[in-house]
């Protein structure tokens, strides 16, 4: 693959379809700048700010845009709220659609055949492999991203965080909890 990619790069640069700096910009952006800390900030704000939470659930794109996140794979954002009786989990069975603007690029498993094939049919068994055990009667809502909507799960706020501020709370919000394959960390799980 390395040689084939080098060939593609050489041809596209030599023919001036692309300037080299464009490639650096893209790699730098998605490797370093855009990642799940964006989404964590959104979630933390939703936890502390009822008006923002309401806006977020009514118009995800606008509410998240107000924090400066959007653009590529983030033009149509929908927030899904977990509750004691409903757990949301996101998948893209057809390819690998994922809310880059708030979570960065997806992990390998999200793009893998096991996750794509199984999540729509047996989400409990998938969740089990992620260590998430839900009560038997929790409704599991699977969202298959078949269009350009991108989903962000708002996990439940952990107990014992009543006086925490947004910045502290954001530390509890894992990437997986925003896909639905995890839950937010409890305060005692925070390292250091």
């Amino acid at each position, binding site marked *: 693959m390395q040689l084939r990619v080098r060939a593609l790069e050489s041809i596209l640069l030599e023919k001036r379809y*692309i300037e080299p*700096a464009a*490639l650096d910009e*893209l790699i730098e952006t998605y490797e370093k700048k855009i990642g799940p800390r964006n989404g964590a900030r959104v979630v933390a704000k939703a936890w502390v700010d009822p008006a923002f939470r309401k806006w977020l659930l009514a118009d995800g794109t606008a509410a998240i845009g107000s924090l400066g996140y959007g653009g590529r794979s983030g033009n149509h954002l929908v927030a899904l709220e977990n509750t004691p009786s409903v757990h949301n989990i996101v998948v893209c069975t057809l390819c690998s659609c994922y809310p880059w603007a708030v979570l960065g690029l997806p992990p390998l498993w999200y793009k893998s055949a096991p996750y794509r094939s199984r999540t729509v049919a*047996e989400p409990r068994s998938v969740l089990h*492999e992620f260590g998430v055990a839900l009560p038997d009667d929790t409704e599991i809502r*699977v969202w298959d991203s078949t269009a350009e909507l991108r989903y962000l799960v708002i996990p439940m706020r952990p107990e014992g965080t009543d006086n925490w501020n947004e910045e502290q709370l954001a530390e509890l919000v894992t990437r997986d909890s925003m896909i639905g394959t995890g839950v937010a960390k409890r305060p005692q799980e925070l390292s250091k």
Partner: protein
Amino acid sequence: MNGAADMGGMHGFGPVEIEPNEPVFHADWEKKAFALNMAIGVANIWNLDAFRFARESLPPPQYLNTSYYGLWVVTLENMMLKYGIATTEELKAGHALAPVKKADEPVTAAKVANMVHCGSPYDRPAAAPPKFKAGDKVRARNVHPKTHTRLPRYARGHTGEVVRVVGCHVFPDSNAIGIGEDAHWLYTVRFDGRELWGQDSDPTVRVAIEAWEPYLESA
């Protein structure tokens, strides 16, 4: 199309494998494969739906045995050949061969930054009001187009409920084959898991898909 990409509900792929540390990229060529595809996308030679169609059109044995970014590489090669950006000889030689025809406006760092931060919304003005509203019972049509569609096989023929009228969005089935955006109303449709996977399946499961109006009929 009923290709290897449409794998919702398939069995036999094994457990979900979670990497202990999850690098964004696993090799330098993955970075480049990602960046080249994203950058050439900005040049608007083809659209994302056409790219997805080309990727899912790879023969299933190849699709399922190629790594994620490997699929991007193979698809980019195919698209460059199809759209006359490169010849087989050039791909083999690994560089442009004379006479080199240079593109008029290269994709610059500024252009990709604009793409990243602004994206490209898929909603379009609607020519007519939506046919369905939240709460309506709808059936996903049983269709098997050989061209691109975003209606997964597992949903076809099944009855669900509209839970959201999303908006009027570019229709991938048209956009992928170069006959225009042909925007249609898009709905979020929720199915009971038992409707999709049978009466013996987990009764607590609900599955939502986004479905364009042509995918749906009243139920």
